[in-house]
C-alpha cells in the first residue's frame, strides 16, 4: 500500500555524502555523547552552537530542513507538556500571571524554554543519525559496538539480527493488520462503540489472525534463512565491512573539539 511506503526505511534518506559514508559506529558514538552533552547544556549561547552544528550536518548530508523539522513532530506534544509543567511548578519570586492556584513564574518560564529547547535539539540530533544511516547499518554498528560484551555471554549478534528483522517486517505487518481490520469491519465488527472492555474485546478477531500469521511467518522465515545458509553470527562476513579510517577519526575529533567549546560556553554563562 503506497500509504506507508514513505516510512519504509524508517527515516533514512539515501544519499552519497561524507556523513552518510561514515562508519555507523562513529555516528552512534557521537550521538550517544551528544545526548549526554545536550542535557548538560544550560546556556543559550551553547544551545545556539548545537543548533548551528545540526544545521551544518543537515546541509552537508543534504537533508531538507522540512524533513528534519517534521521528525520532531510526534514529540512536540511531549515538549510542550514538559515546558508547561516547568512554567507552573518550578516556583520562583517573580510571578507573571496565575490561573487559580497555578502561578507562572519568570524563572519557571526561562527553565521551561530551556528544557523545551534542549529536548527539541536532542530529537533533531538523533534524527540526523536515522536520516543518514540505513537500518541495517545501524544494526551492524550496534552489533560491533556491543561486540565486546558478547565475551560475557551477551547475544550481540542476535540482538542486531532481531533489530534487522523487526525493521524489515514493520511495513509488511502494518499492511497485513490493515487488511485484517478491513476484513472484520466488512463482517460487521465494531471497534468504536461500547465501553473500554467491549472495545478491547472487539479487537480479538484482529489479534488472533495476526498472531497466527506472525507465527506462521516466523516458521517459514526460519526455514528460508536456514536455506540461505544462516548459522548464526559465527563466520558471517559483511558485504560492506565496517571500516574505521581517518574520516571517522576526524569526525570524532571535530566533535570532541566542539564539545569542549560548548562546555566552555556553558561555564561562562
Amino acid at each position, binding site marked *: 500500500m503506497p500509504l506507508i511506503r514513505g516510512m519504509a526505511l524508517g527515516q533514512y534518506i539515501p544519499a552519497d555524502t561524507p556523513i552518510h559514508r561514515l562508519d555507523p559506529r562513529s555516528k552512534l558514538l557521537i550521538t550517544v555523547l551528544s545526548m549526554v552533552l545536550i542535557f548538560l547544556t544550560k546556556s543559550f549561547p551553547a544551545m545556539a552552537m548545537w543548533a548551528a552544528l545540526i544545521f551544518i550536518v543537515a546541509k552537508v548530508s543534504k537533508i531538507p530542513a522540512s524533513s528534519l523539522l517534521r521528525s520532531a513532530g510526534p514529540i512536540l506534544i511531549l515538549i510542550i507538556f514538559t515546558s508547561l509543567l516547568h512554567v507552573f511548578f518550578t516556583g520562583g519570586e517573580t510571578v507573571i500571571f496565575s490561573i487559580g492556584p497555578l502561578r507562572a513564574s519568570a524563572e519557571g518560564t526561562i527553565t521551561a524554554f530551556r528544557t523545551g529547547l534542549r529536548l527539541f535539539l536532542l530529537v533533531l540530533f538523533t534524527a540526523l543519525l536515522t536520516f543518514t544511516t540505513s537500518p*541495517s547499518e545501524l544494526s551492524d554498528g550496534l552489533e560491533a559496538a556491543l561486540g565486546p560484551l558478547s565475551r560475557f555471554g551477551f547475544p550481540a549478534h542476535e540482538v542486531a539480527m532481531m533489530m534487522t528483522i523487526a525493521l524489515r517486517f514493520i511495513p509488511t505487518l502494518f499492511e497485513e493488520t490493515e487488511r485484517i481490520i478491513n476484513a472484520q469491519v466488512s463482517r460487521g465488527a465494531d471497534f468504536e462503540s461500547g465501553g473500554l472492555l467491549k472495545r478491547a474485546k472487539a479487537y480479538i478477531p484482529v489479534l488472533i489472525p495476526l498472531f497466527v500469521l506472525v507465527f506462521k511467518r516466523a516458521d517459514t522465515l526460519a526455514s*528460508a534463512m536456514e536455506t*540461505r545458509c544462516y548459522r548464526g553470527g559465527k563466520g558471517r562476513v559483511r*558485504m560492506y565491512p565496517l571500516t574505521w579510517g581517518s574520516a571517522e577519526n576526524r569526525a570524532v575529533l571535530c566533535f570532541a573539539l566542539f564539545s569542549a567549546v560548548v562546555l566552555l560556553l556553558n561555564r561562562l554563562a
Partner: protein
Amino acid sequence: MAPVSAMLPRWRLYSWSISLMSSGTTLCLEGAEFQYPETGKKVLKGIDLEIRAGEWVALLGPNGSGKSTLLKLFNALLIPSQGRCFVDGMDTKDQANTEIIRSKVSMVFQNPEDQIVASVVEEDTAFGPENLGLSSEEIRTRVKEALMGTGLWEKRKHAVSSLSGGQKQRLALAGVLAIRPGALLLDEAMSMLDPASRRSFLDLVRKEHDSGRTVVQVTHRLDETVLSDRTVVVADGKIQWQGSTEGFLSLEESRLREMGFAKPPLAVLREELVKNGILPPSTKPDISEIRGKLCLSL
C-alpha cells in the same frame, strides 16, 4: 590425519567446492518416508526418485499431497524418517553435510514476504553469501551478478517494501542465486504472482536451467511446467505417475482431471494441430515455439 578440508580456511573450501559444481546437482531419494513428529501423520510413503544434474523436474500434486514436504527433503530442511536422501551423493542425514548441502541446493518459497530478511534490496541479496563466509569483494561480485541476472540491479538501493509482488519474488530468487547453488527448488514460487510477473519469473528459471542448474518445481499449474523435462505426480504421499512432461501433457484430458489437473489450452491446441499434421510432433506446448512454427507453416 585431518581431512584436507580442515586445513583450508572456510571461504577457500566454499569457493573451491562451488567451482566444481557449476554443472548442476544430482538429487536422489531412496525409499523416503516422512512422518511429522508432532502429529504422527505420514505424509510421504516410500518415494524412490532420482533427479539428474541439470534436469528440470516438475513435481505436481493436489494441495496436501506431500509434494512440498518432498521438496524440503532435498535441502535437509526435513530429514526422511525412513529411507534416505542424497545430494551429490551426500546423505542429508549426516549433519556434517548440512552446510555444504545448503550451499548446493537452494529453495524459493511461495510468499516472497516470508523469505526476505533485510530492508534494502542489495542487503537482502547479500544475506546468503555473507553466511558462507566469503570475502566482502566476492560477496559484492555475486550480489551484482544475481541482481543483474534478475533485472533488479537498478533497484539495489531501494527499500524492499517499495517493490511490487513480482519484483519481491525476483529478489527472493536473486537471494538464492547469489549462493550459486547447483540445484534450485521452487515451492509454488509463482502461485502468488500475476500473469505478467509469472511469465518473467518463468523466463528467469528457464535461463538458470539453460546455464546447467538442476530445477525442481512444485506447482499445480501445468502451464508453468511445459518447459520441464520430466513430470512427477505425487498423490497421497506416493508417486502416482512419472514420465516425460511431453507425455504427461498429452494424456487424455479426463485422465488429467482425475489426477486433479486441467490441461493447458496451449497443450490442447498443440495436440490437435499435431494430429492434423500442421505442427511437427516435436513441438513443445510453449507459446513462442508454437507461434514461430505456425507463422512459418501457414
